[in-house]
């Protein structure tokens, strides 16, 4: 952060400082209560055993964490979360970028198309989750009825352990591709046109211009999109809750769904807090790694 007012000295207790602290007090109280305290308390809980029925948590040391390592269901949910995240992020990088390139063309009614493609992003995951449950309905859903129309018997989708997770990825892709396309489009339109003109004068073809100008200059947007997609996908919950409840046979149980079950079905608050901390660490490390991996030429 730059300090535009360097040179003037800061007073420790003048009217300006007093006003600032007065204005900030509610915010500080709020964040201390609803972020600071919970963040610390869930760390504390992760070393305890507590079902909320007895007044105080029991200290168990690292037991929750060691139990997690040996918990096959936890490992399974971790793997499934990773698969979901990789699947949806791959979809987004490919389809959102393609859609953004399409929306960047000079075509008739292009603004109308931009409006339409963003539309799924304003709907709730609960609402679209249930719409897609109905779309995927093996007997009466639109997809299998459509397939039947061309003589193909469609799969059971959400009821098939092998493709239930894929069905969730398709649903999440439907909702998010347009959103990330809008972000890519903003990135594309921020590229200075003179680069393209210069390349054209030098005789560069369309593919060369895309590879040597568009892609490198789009890198900051790329990093942002991938990081956001990974963070959001790792926290997927509502879709799973509404569409499959983690089933069939646990094939779509993801990390946050597992955490929710441990905390609010089995009331293992300490264990669930440990799951929460593992989630936090994973997201933290992944975000840092991505900035390191892609971030070399990114300013900021």
């Amino acid at each position, binding site marked *: 952060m730059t300090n535009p007012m360097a040179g003037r000295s800061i007073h420790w207790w003048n009217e300006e400082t007093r006003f600032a602290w007065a204005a900030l007090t509610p915010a500080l109280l709020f964040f201390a209560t609803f972020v600071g*305290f919970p963040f610390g308390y869930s760390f504390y809980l992760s070393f305890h055993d507590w079902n*909320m029925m007895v007044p105080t948590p029991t200290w168990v040391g690292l037991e929750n964490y060691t139990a997690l390592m040996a918990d096959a269901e936890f490992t399974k949910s971790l793997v499934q979360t990773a698969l979901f995240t990789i699947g949806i992020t791959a979809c987004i990088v490919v389809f959102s970028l393609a859609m953004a390139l399409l929306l960047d063309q000079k075509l008739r009614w292009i603004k109308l198309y931009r409006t339409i493609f*963003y539309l799924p992003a304003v709907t709730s995951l609960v609402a679209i989750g249930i719409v897609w*449950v109905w779309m995927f309905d093996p007997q009466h859903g639109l997809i299998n009825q459509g397939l039947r129309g061309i003589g193909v018997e469609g799969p059971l989708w959400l009821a098939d352990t092998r493709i239930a997770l894929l069905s969730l990825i398709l649903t999440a892709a439907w909702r998010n591709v347009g959103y990330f396309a809008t972000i890519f489009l903003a990135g594309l339109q921020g590229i200075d046109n003179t680069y393209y003109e210069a390349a054209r004068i030098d005789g560069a073809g369309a593919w060369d211009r895309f590879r040597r100008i568009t892609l490198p200059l789009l890198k900051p947007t790329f990093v942002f999109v991938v990081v956001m997609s990974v963070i959001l996908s790792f926290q997927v919950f509502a879709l799973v809750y509404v569409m499959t409840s983690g089933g069939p046979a646990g094939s779509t149980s993801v990390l946050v769904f597992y955490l929710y079950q441990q905390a609010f079905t089995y009331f293992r608050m300490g264990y669930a807090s440990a799951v929460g901390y593992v989630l936090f660490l994973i997201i933290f490390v992944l975000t840092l790694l991505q900035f390191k991996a892609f971030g070399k030429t990114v300013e900021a």
Partner: protein
Amino acid sequence: MTKSTLHTPGRLDERPWPATVLLYALLLLCTVITLLPFAWMLSSSFKPTVEIFSGTAQLIPANPILDNYINAVTRQPVARAIFNSILVAGIETFAVVVTSVFTAYPFARLRFPGRDILFMLILGTMMIPSQVTMIPTFILMKWFGWIDSYQGLIVPRIMAPLGIFLMRQFLQSLPKELEEAARIDGCSRLTTLTHVLLPLTGPAVATLAIFTFTASWNEFFWPLLVVQSTEMWTIQLLIAQLKAAEVTDWGMVMAIVSLSVLPTVLIYVVLQRYFVKGIAMSGLKG
């Protein structure tokens, strides 16, 4: 296919016509994929049960009826759930806008010890996934006696780091002279903020308000934890509950889902320029 950008003049002429046809075909394909689930949702909500289970996928109902909507309102607590959602999202939006402006102002305009560290701390809270803080927040609500109440739904959501960030960016972009003139005229800092700066924040406030309202309307995880009785259900909880109870009256379910999607879609269609602005602000400057 020619790759060129919107800003290139005379590009329309250089694209061979098969490429243009292909581009329109792709646009059409994307449009169909995007709109088909909405069409299926609306169409099912107007179909009688026999038609829904007839075994033929008709996108236009043969005999459209309103029964599903009537059933939804009479048999399910739809009105109450929508009322709860409007109340919660409305208060939350108002609160976030007010707290964001007041918290952003010192960060944007004043000099005081600890400013930059405090600002980084507040932004840093965005790094913590809400699921990590969810359990202790739930326990807090128990201590406060706020489980199953509007306070419990609303209070943990009345401030947002992103809102503070957006308002700070916006306030910093306003010319300083305005304030200085008001200060010289003897206005207090508070009056300067409420009477000189606030009237200028219209576009930023609109963007923040729309995003907060949409997010709050669509919020699911927190209400799921804090709400227990049917009277306190938000519309999202009601929908999830229908699925959990395995209600198979798909016509009625789709009617309720259509009603739940309508407000955010309407807000988006009418006020979309603020959405675009918000994406640019949160996405690229963040």
